[in-house]
């Protein structure tokens, strides 16, 4: 599962840094938080955000602040909600995508956030199917 997540994070970063404005990283970080539940996910969010801001010539720290805030809100509400469902992943990654795009002042917010959310749900279903045994421990 670790190798799979490394690959997904790397691909999402490359795509978002070089090709598309669809918010892929909020969804990927959400999945990473859900399936790993470790402190380093926050550190990872900080580093990824800074790197993304550097390569896309944005104000450095804006993406990191959003990613960490996003993960913090999820960690606050995780006990009140059923988080290992595709509905939760879909809605939260959609809201995360909308927030991220609004902060950056991007266009086509709803469409892009919808596509990002769809990809997160697909990844979530893949992880659930392929790594079911690893998930029992969670």
């Amino acid at each position, binding site marked *: 599962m670790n190798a799979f997540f490394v690959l997904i994070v790397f691909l999402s970063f490359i795509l978002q840094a070089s090709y598309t404005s669809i918010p892929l990283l909020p969804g990927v970080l959400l999945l990473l938080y859900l399936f790993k539940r470790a402190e*380093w996910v*926050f550190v990872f969010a900080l580093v990824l955000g800074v790197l993304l801001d550097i390569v*896309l*010539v944005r104000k450095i720290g804006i993406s990191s602040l959003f990613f960490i805030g996003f993960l913090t809100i999820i960690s606050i509400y*995780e006990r009140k909600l059923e988080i290992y469902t595709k509905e939760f992943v879909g809605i939260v990654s959609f809201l995360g995508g909308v927030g991220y795009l609004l902060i950056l002042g991007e266009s086509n917010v709803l469409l892009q956030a919808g596509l990002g959310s769809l990809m997160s749900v697909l990844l979530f279903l893949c992880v659930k199917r392929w790594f079911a045994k690893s998930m029992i421990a969670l």
Partner: protein
Amino acid sequence: MKQKNSFLPVTVICLVIASLLYVFAPRGEGFFSVLNLIIRPVLSPFGALGTNRLSELDTVKAENRKLLEKLITFQTIIIENNALRDQFQTTYPKSNLLVPARIIGGQSLVALVNSFEVVILDKGRKDGVVVGQAVVVGKYLVGKVERVGEYGSRAMLVGNPSFSLRVKIIPKDLEAQTVSFPLGLLKGKSAGQMDVENVLLSEKISVGDMVVSVGDEDENGIGIMPDLIVGSVGSVDKKPSALFQSAQISPGIKLSNKNMVFVVTGAQR
């Protein structure tokens, strides 16, 4: 499973670091510019994917663009002649300092299908690039610089929904005595498309007319210079009941097969 409480110190530390970066290093100077120099070559091959697809059709289109460039030069000369005849004064030719910049990344909704709405260039503050400068290819305006880093910059392209510019529409069958042209506001739409809006209903515009910039440079010569070609009129939306007419614009140039653009620094104007 880790307890939620153990996340709190790490979360707070990360938030503090991110806030400090946001407040004290928003422009990405020093260490971050060096980091950018290291990361960029890694990402560069990905950003260049999908370019260099020169086919026979592309060659014909390139020749057509050159002919259009000559046409607009000819039309500009006619306009200048008219001005000379009317006011007995001349406009001195201006020379611009162009900084060649390589496209090292770009963003759009679906980058492989649509043209980019934003591109990342490998030239930044160190090369004299500042916010607001025009980005051109030949005589075609492709966008303007919206953010600048030490070694890189981010340019918003003309097809970006946030892009707007005052333009004039030059008829394809220009007559020598023409002195004024329809004015309008160019606005980018999604997927790299553009519209010219707020054109007076009394003005005559038709398919094939050239759309060129009016110019919005400041006193330092920073901004978009006049008479840069944006595209041509693709279709006209004219309703007798409306106050204004609008037109859909076909882009003059597509960046899909370009690796290099030029930033008009205006330093030697």
